[in-house]
């Protein structure tokens, strides 16, 4: 009771059900079940943004955020590889600026593969995948330097961003770049909204790769996620109901979730 060091039975069952629903969504979609995804405005802008760079004949800058290898960064790399394919098909240069040494090889591999996939391996320039600095603000200054020296036409920021985000986007805006940004954590979203042309908010970030690629695995997962969110809402509704009727110490749901200690 009141401890979250290890799971209890309620948590095990809940966690397994959530996992099972998502995996079931994936498997159903892989078997060819049609799945609907609604339009996500920030993401439809990606093609337009890449097209703009092509028209202007200037490069694209992409930042996969500041985190090391974790779930947020892996999602950013998935979006990166989609954008690289678009850009590579239009022979537009894309510069990736990195903060984590561990992400560096993974990003390089993703980009190289994307060039291979569209049959333009000769256009891949390893120099354009750049480790800038592992220091947050050195990274920001370095990225601003690249954005202005390379006269970047389009600026993509997808990943985990912190305070440095506004340094990147405000300078990018002053230099006239079209900017599309997405970050799951809410902290930097207000600044993205104030300075970028399109912003991907919260969970839309995780829906991104599904929406962009329409890959059945991902759309299926997205449908599973929606069901999971409905379950979370149901739990909250039940909890609110119980809290309204009972005193906190009688609210068994609270205890099951490890609270009320």
């Amino acid at each position, binding site marked *: 009771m009141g401890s979250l060091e*290890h799971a209890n039975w309620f*948590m*095990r069952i809940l966690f397994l059900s*959530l*996992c099972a629903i*998502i*995996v079931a969504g*994936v498997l159903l979609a892989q078997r060819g079940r049609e799945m609907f995804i609604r339009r996500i405005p920030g993401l439809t802008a990606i093609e337009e943004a890449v097209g703009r760079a092509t028209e202007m004949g200037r490069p694209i800058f992409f930042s996969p955020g500041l985190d090391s290898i974790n*779930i*947020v960064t*892996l*999602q950013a790399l*998935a979006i990166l*590889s*989609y954008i690289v394919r678009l850009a590579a098909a239009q022979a537009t240069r894309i510069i990736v600026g*990195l903060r*984590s*040494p*561990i992400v*560096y*090889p*993974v990003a390089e591999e*993703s980009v190289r*593969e*994307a060039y291979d*996939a569209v049959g333009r391996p000769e256009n891949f320039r390893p*120099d354009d*995948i*750049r*480790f*800038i*600095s*592992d220091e947050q*603000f*050195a990274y*920001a200054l370095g990225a601003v330097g690249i954005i202005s020296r390379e006269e970047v036409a389009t600026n993509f920021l997808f990943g985990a961003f912190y*305070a440095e985000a*506004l*340094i990147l986007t*405000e300078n990018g805006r002053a230099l006239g770049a079209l900017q599309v940004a997405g970050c*799951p*954590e*809410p902290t930097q979203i207000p*600044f993205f*909204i*104030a300075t970028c042309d399109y912003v991907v908010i*919260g*969970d839309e*970030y*995780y*829906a991104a790769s599904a929406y962009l*690629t329409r890959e059945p*695995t*991902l759309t299926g*997962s*997205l449908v599973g*996620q929606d069901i*999971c*969110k409905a379950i*979370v809402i149901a739990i909250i509704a039940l909890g609110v109901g119980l809290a309204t009727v009972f005193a906190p110490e009688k609210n068994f749901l609270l205890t099951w979730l490890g609270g009320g200690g």
Partner: protein
Amino acid sequence: MWFSRLLQRLFPPAPTPAALYLYLALAVVGSIVIIVALHRLLGPRGRRWLIAFVTFIAGLFFGLEYFYPVHGDPAKNFLTDWIEPVSVMLTVVGAFTVGLGIYSLLQVHGRNLAQRRPGWHNSLAFFLATFAMLVFGMWEHYLHLPQPPPEVVPWPKGIYEILFNGLFAPLQAATFSLLAFYIASAAYRAFRVRTGEAALMMAAAFIVMIGQVPVGAWLTSFIPADSPAAFFRLEMLGEWVLRWLNTPAQRGIIFGIAVGALAMSLRIWLSLERGTFFSEQS
């Protein structure tokens, strides 16, 4: 802890310095043999299977420790004691990737310098700064100065201090503080009542901004603090917006993220993820 006993049993420390170097050499040779053998023996399918297996085991280890039933006090299961040493090992292994990033930097700036590209003197400054910090940072470390350091410090330490406290730290702080200007100009530009959404954003920003500073408290100080209307004192209103309007909206986002990240984790863990990096080809 039976884990460390097991480790001692399996990998006993070398008895003498000479034996240590022998063991090290043997371990290196052995590892290379294993890696070469893996490379030779495994076909594309085998490799893919191995990668998926390693990913699965790593995720299973950390996940199972949380979900597997525990007993005793402190409550633990058969994996609990492994968490700490495995985590340390992963940290150490991860630390060796530093070279990758540094290599990328040296490559870009080295080429600028070698080919005298425009701005090569900046690349020179980069090299000097890197080298100076590396040399004096290490030097300072191995001076093994007593703590607190003496009044008159040896010159390598002095140079290190100039590099760190005179350049590195102020550059960091100054860059961060640029945000004061950027946020002011972003606020001025973005907060226009063009759309309903922008107007809502502006109103909330206004209340919070003014409620936070002494001048806000002063503006509405005519409302008695213990009356029902105290809610409308700017500092109270600001806190209410943050706690009762901002909090639930953030939580709404957070629950969405939680599920999204869970799905992403699952797909990676089970090697279900698709997209360039995770595609079938090798």
